């Protein structure tokens, strides 16, 4: 009995960091206080808010309130520009442009907005007045990617190509066809522009509009490629995994590849540090002559990632009952994670915005429930050292490492001394801890290999000729109820079956009821119909994941049937 006690104590010590990791709360909540909040009637906040120096601009989308809304620092609503022609999720980030002049003429300070109905608008941030507007092409939807500024031009990724427009009047200089795109932002390089498409092709377009294509074959490219010292970085999305690839910009060849999880977020660069995210983890790379992975932590994020000036990363967790993640990464390459509870929960893909004004640091959070919360804190000199100090020593990780070393050391000694009972105990615990630590990566890699070896045949969900053409290449939901099929199409931008179903039910006026179980979110009833349960099929294949875990493509057909 006397030997069991210390052993159990060790077991408790092992479990302690695991338990505390779940509920770790930062000092962020103590330092920041809620300044104001605003709840939009409906819709989503799918992209980060923008601070123009005077106003906070927030973009909302969805069927309820597709708009750009301006607030002052005190939370007073200044103006709102609604676009009722918006087709679906507007997630193209707002771009702030300083006043300037060029060959096309002069332009004032303005905010550029890309809409899913293909419109590109320049608004005056002070009162929302439309300065100019141009219409770009629409194929299912229009603009969803991030603009890039290049001198007197704005480069806009449209649905099937990329165009160069004058900042002064919006006049199109050229437009070049590329591949079908979604959330595929454009980036500017010395030689021109880079963007990706849904077919996994990387495009280079020079400043005259001449294009070159590099079929990477790694998956969909749904973000602005990032220029690093090691090459151009893309995080390509495959069916159930992803690849972080470094590309040689001179010939489009892949220099390096790193595995990633499903549904990647938009990677973000901070000096030579690169952060990527997906449904399974957040990874940090150091990209100098080559990219090198220097840290990773389990986290579920699929949208925007934000580097703050002090090297802290803020990321939305895209899960049904989520918080935000605050990550610190110090010069000793220690990556730590802290959960931020800002009082709004649910799916989220918009990066928080942080800026300084009136001697205060403002942090703006928004999520898929269109809830906006603004926090402030006074600027104090000790802020940065505090965060740095937190990152200096992670007691949980260090403690776990210590226990692992103790276990492997004592296993060896006990084995050599012939104390087999205790050898079995320490070695089994050692293997259990190791397996728990590697399980996320192990299961991801295992599933990937397994899927490659044993591909499942999919019965295609057939296109219904009665559906409108505007539904082509969009996300469609069919709900079977009382012998009838209720179909909603033309939806875009959803990453999971759950969020897509939610929007479809919003359109149909159906209520969804469900519950969170250990297995994920469980839909119990749709429009009050419980039956013996509900099951879903994506493109004809029966869903085997919980709805909040099941990722979908940009042109998926989801069918719900009562059991």
């Amino acid at each position, binding site marked *: 009995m006397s030997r*069991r006690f210390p*052993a*159990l104590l060790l*077991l408790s010590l092992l479990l302690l960091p*695991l*338990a505390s990791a*779940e509920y770790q709360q930062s000092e962020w909540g103590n330092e920041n206080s809620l300044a104001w909040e605003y709840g939009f009637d409906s819709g989503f906040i799918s992209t980060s808010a923008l601070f123009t120096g005077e106003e906070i601009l927030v973009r909302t989308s969805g069927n309820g309130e597709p708009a750009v809304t301006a607030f002052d620092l005190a939370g007073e609503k200044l103006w709102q520009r609604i676009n009722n022609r918006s087709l679906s999720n507007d997630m193209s980030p707002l771009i702030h442009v300083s006043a300037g002049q060029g060959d096309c003429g002069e332009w004032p300070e303005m905010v550029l907005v890309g809409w899913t109905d293909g419109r590109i608008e320049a608004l005056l941030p002070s009162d929302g007045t439309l300065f100019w507007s141009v219409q770009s092409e629409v194929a299912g939807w229009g603009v969803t990617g991030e603009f890039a500024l290049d001198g007197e031009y704005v480069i806009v990724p449209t649905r099937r190509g990329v165009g160069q427009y004058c900042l002064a009047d919006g006049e199109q200089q050229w437009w070049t066809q590329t591949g079908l795109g979604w959330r595929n932002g454009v980036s500017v390089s010395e030689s021109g522009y880079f963007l990706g498409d849904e077919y996994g092709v990387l495009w280079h377009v020079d400043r005259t509009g001449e294009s070159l294509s590099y079929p990477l074959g790694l998956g969909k490219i749904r973000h602005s490629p990032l220029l690093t010292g090691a090459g151009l970085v893309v995080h390509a999305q495959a069916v159930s995994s992803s690849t972080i690839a470094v590309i040689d910009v001179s010939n489009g060849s892949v220099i390096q590849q790193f595995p990633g999880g499903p549904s990647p977020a938009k990677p973000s660069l901070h000096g030579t540090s690169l952060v990527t995210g997906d449904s399974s983890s957040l990874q940090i790379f150091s990209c100098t002559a080559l990219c090198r992975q220097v840290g990773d932590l389990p986290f579920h994020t699929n949208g925007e990632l934000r580097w703050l000036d002090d090297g802290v990363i803020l990321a939305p967790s895209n899960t049904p009952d989520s918080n935000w993640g605050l990550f610190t990464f110090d010069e000793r390459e220690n990556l730590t994670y802290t959960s931020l509870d800002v009082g709004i929960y649910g799916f989220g893909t918009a990066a928080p915005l942080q800026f300084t004004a009136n001697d205060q640091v403002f942090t703006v959070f928004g999520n898929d429930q269109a809830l906006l919360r603004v926090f402030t804190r006074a600027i104090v000199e000790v802020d940065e050292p505090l965060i740095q100090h937190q990152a200096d020593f992670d007691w949980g990780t260090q403690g776990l490492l210590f226990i692992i070393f103790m276990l492997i050391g004592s296993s060896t000694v006990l084995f050599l001394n012939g104390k087999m*009972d205790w050898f*079995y*105990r320490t070695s*089994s*615990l050692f*293997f*259990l801890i190791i*397996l*728990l630590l590697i*399980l996320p990566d*192990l*299961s991801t890699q*295992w*599933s990937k290999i*397994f899927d490659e070896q*044993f591909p*499942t045949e999919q019965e295609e969900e057939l296109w219904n000729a009665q559906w409108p053409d505007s539904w082509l290449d969009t996300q469609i939901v069919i709900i079977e109820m009382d012998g009838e099929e209720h179909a909603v199409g033309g939806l875009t931008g959803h990453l999971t079956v759950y969020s897509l179903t939610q929007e479809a039910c919003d359109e149909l006026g159906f209520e969804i009821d469900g*519950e*969170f*179980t*250990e*297995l*994920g979110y*469980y*839909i*119990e009833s749709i429009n009050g119909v*419980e039956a*013996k*349960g*509900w*099951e879903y099929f994506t493109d004809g294949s*029966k869903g*085997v*994941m*919980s709805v909040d*875990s099941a990722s979908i493509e940009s042109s998926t057909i989801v069918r719900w049937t009562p*059991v």
Partner: protein
Amino acid sequence: MFQAMGVHGPVLSPLSELLLDALLLGTAFILLSRPTKRPVFDSLFMVCLVVSVSLIRVVMEPLPNVQPVTVAALLVGAQLGARRGAAFAVLVAMISNMFMGDGWWTAFQAIGWASIAVAGSRLPLVTSAGLNLGRVCIASVIAALWFDFFVSLSLLDGTIGLYEFMIYLGHGLPFDFLHVIGNLTFTVWLGRWFYNLLEEEPTLEEIEFAVVNGHGIDG
């Protein structure tokens, strides 16, 4: 595997859930309703056992597919017999799932653990020298794989083919392996202690009977 893959079978309506819970509770009651010399002590002991193991399961939920109940069911079956082992398994599945999510799978978990308890009562895990840890380790490995397989059967509702089911099982192998390692760890660390905890102390009447009987034989 079941938990980690995030898969589940058909949803039950509140009435069906009530009926399922009533059925499970009734089964446990029938299994436990037999004459006993110490009804109050035995009942209290079973309640403490069920509550504590359920609590451990709930607390350990963040660790994917680390299932202390599997080894506990095996040892309860081995020490207290098939009926009480099965009742223990059913009650733990029911009570812990009240916190972790109740549904169709509860029945499969209850039957899975109950079958392990029955196997524990039939297997020669206990010898004259006490608990044979080597055999318990082997049994706990098989029990982990059997339980994961059995609970996965809850997916077979007529819409999933055999091939898809096999694919599903294949995906879950890392989690099955974790269950196996978890079981081995529990067995080597806590197996003997838990077994001794379950060992029944003889009543005064039993001691008296044994002594008198012994004297009688001697005489």
